[in-house]
């Protein structure tokens, strides 16, 4: 078996929060003991609600943030502590697409420069050669050469996301990190982009780290899913298994909260409505972070965070249910 493309081990990211000039700083642990891996050409979705740390995981993998603990191996290199020139050299392998295509593109640049900039910066192509490459890239994402001299504001949200994707794949990355990349789009446009991502994966063999809160989208696009809650992965596994037989009570509640677009099914199915809100990451509960809302909570859950153990039909879960 080949080595994974990306291996994240025991990742921890903390932020310092100062709540007033003279008050002491507090530590917010946004990501805690997170481990996962992605094979070449594979799509791993990290799902979770606000405050789950899923976007922080994406930013740490992109090395837009410095992890406070743990390692991130990309293609054999530990990038968790890389800086400067070394980090710049691995950048072509690792690219990102953000949620908001209105703020992620420089409004003062024409599309040829938006998409061609990575090629220039990394010395891949210049001049006419660069323009030829940009034209190919635009065609690959369903746009044309006649778009090259236009500005971002002349494009719709879906078209802008295509431009952001063209820029991200310009250096032929091995891993593309997509942080809520289709969340701001209307359904019909969203599906056009998801189909484009599927095509690119097939043609170019890119692996995706797909960060999303939308379980419908994730079920469709991901090979594997990691479910996060308050900075921890509580369950991970092949998409079909996780959606059909969720092993963690949080996953079960999350899936049951997504309304099914069919009134007969939606109104007759059993739903689990969780009480309360996600606790503040500044004061996370002891033990399993989900124990304050869990319908199956036991005494042991308040003590230690349960370890990950494997689940029949693939993946792993961090839950004491069925163990004690």
């Amino acid at each position, binding site marked *: 078996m080949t080595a994974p493309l990306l291996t994240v081990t025991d990742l921890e990211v903390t932020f310092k929060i100062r709540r007033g000039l003279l008050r002491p700083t507090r530590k917010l642990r946004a990501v805690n003991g997170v481990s996962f891996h992605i094979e070449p050409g594979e799509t791993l979705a990290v799902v979770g*609600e*606000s405050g789950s740390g899923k976007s922080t995981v994406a930013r740490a993998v992109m090395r837009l943030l410095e992890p406070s603990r743990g390692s991130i191996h990309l293609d054999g290199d530990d990038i968790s502590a890389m800086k400067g020139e070394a980090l710049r050299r691995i950048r072509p392998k690792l690219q990102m697409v953000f949620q908001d295509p209105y703020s992620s593109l420089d409004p003062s640049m024409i599309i040829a420069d938006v998409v061609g900039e990575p090629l220039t910066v990394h010395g891949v192509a210049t001049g006419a050669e660069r323009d030829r490459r940009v034209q190919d890239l635009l065609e690959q994402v369903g746009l044309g050469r006649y778009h090259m001299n236009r500005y971002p504001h002349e494009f*719709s949200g*879906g078209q802008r996301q295509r431009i952001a994707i063209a820029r991200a794949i310009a250096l032929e990355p091995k891993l593309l990190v997509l942080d809520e990349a289709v969340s701001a789009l*209307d*359904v*019909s*446009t*969203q*599906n*056009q982009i*998801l*189909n484009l991502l*599927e095509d690119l994966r097939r043609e170019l063999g890119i692996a995706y780290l797909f960060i999303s*809160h*939308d*379980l*419908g*989208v994730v*079920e*469709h696009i991901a090979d594997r899913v990691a479910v996060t809650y308050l900075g921890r992965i509580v369950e991970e596994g092949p*998409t*079909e298994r996780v959606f059909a037989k969720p092993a963690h009570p949080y996953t079960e*509640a*999350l899936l*049951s*909260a*997504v*309304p*099914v*677009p*069919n*009134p*007969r*099914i*939606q*109104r007759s199915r059993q*739903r689990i*409505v*969780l009480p*309360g*809100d*996600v606790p503040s990451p500044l004061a996370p509960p002891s033990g399993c972070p989900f124990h304050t809302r869990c319908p199956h909570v036991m005494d042991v859950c308040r003590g230690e965070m349960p370890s990950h153990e494997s689940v029949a039909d693939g993946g792993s879960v961090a839950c004491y249910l069925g163990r004690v």
Partner: protein
Amino acid sequence: MSAPLLEVEDLAVEFLTDHGWVRVVDGVSFSVGAGETLGLVGESGSGKTVTSLSVMQLIPRPPGRIAGGSIRFEGRELLGLSDQELEALRGEAIAMVFQESMTSLNPAFTIGDQIGEVVRRHRGVSRREARVRALEVLELVQIPDPEARIDAYPHEFSGGMRQRAAIAMALACDPKLLIADEPTTALDVTVQAQVLDLLRSLQQRLGMGILFVTHNLGVVADLCDRVTVMYAGRMVETANVFDLFESPQHPYTEGLLQAMPQLGERGKRLAAIPGTPPMPWQMPDGCRFHPRCPYAEAACAEQDVKLDDLGEGRSTRCRRHAELKLEGAE
């Protein structure tokens, strides 16, 4: 049968743009009965929010204007009422909840003061009585420990709690009609489930009518009794929720349903409606959906399509609906 709570008839709304006066809502008609939830569904730019804001005449004027039609609440015409008469209705008989509860609550006042102000303004009661009412409605929307929370500021609440507080404020004067514009869109799904449950149980207890504006067909399937689908400023289909999902009568509705990723098979391409909606100053001739419609024929581009009444509260704006067999949600 008594008259519906809200009747909107042939509503037209225009905005002044670089392209002149542009009609963004055109010929929209619907009604909401007491105890009923009507879903107003569409993608961005379909005119659903402008329609809902027009009911309370909250569109900015200028650049907007209501160019025609009629909006009747309990039989009384709202268009042409004075600002003072409208003020008396807003927050009293007709209340609104928006997507961004952080922007609809004032950050400088406590939750209790803001709810209390609505009550004092419309009911003319004392501060103390208003506070009692604020406490009641906070309890009604299941804010935990309301005695302690009533003196909190909006920023001290989580997103879900703020939306509950906004709903509490809307309910403070026992409105007959609640207009809710994407009230769960900014919320996490587990919190969305709580808020939908809350709206359902409140409606059962209070019997209010709800106009629910959303782009999310899952939420529609969960909550709405009837649905009006909008596209490019026009209504394209109205039906009861079960009929709409089972046998849509407009190709756009079919397209929206088929585009739900949950309904797509893994590994297969997702259904997508090709292209993008038209800009309001470049509306295509004929059926406005024809450039994106898989069933369009030459005639669809030529003649204007009227809304066709199919009986039993169903209508569609498609000239081919009788011959097409459109697919619903399975």
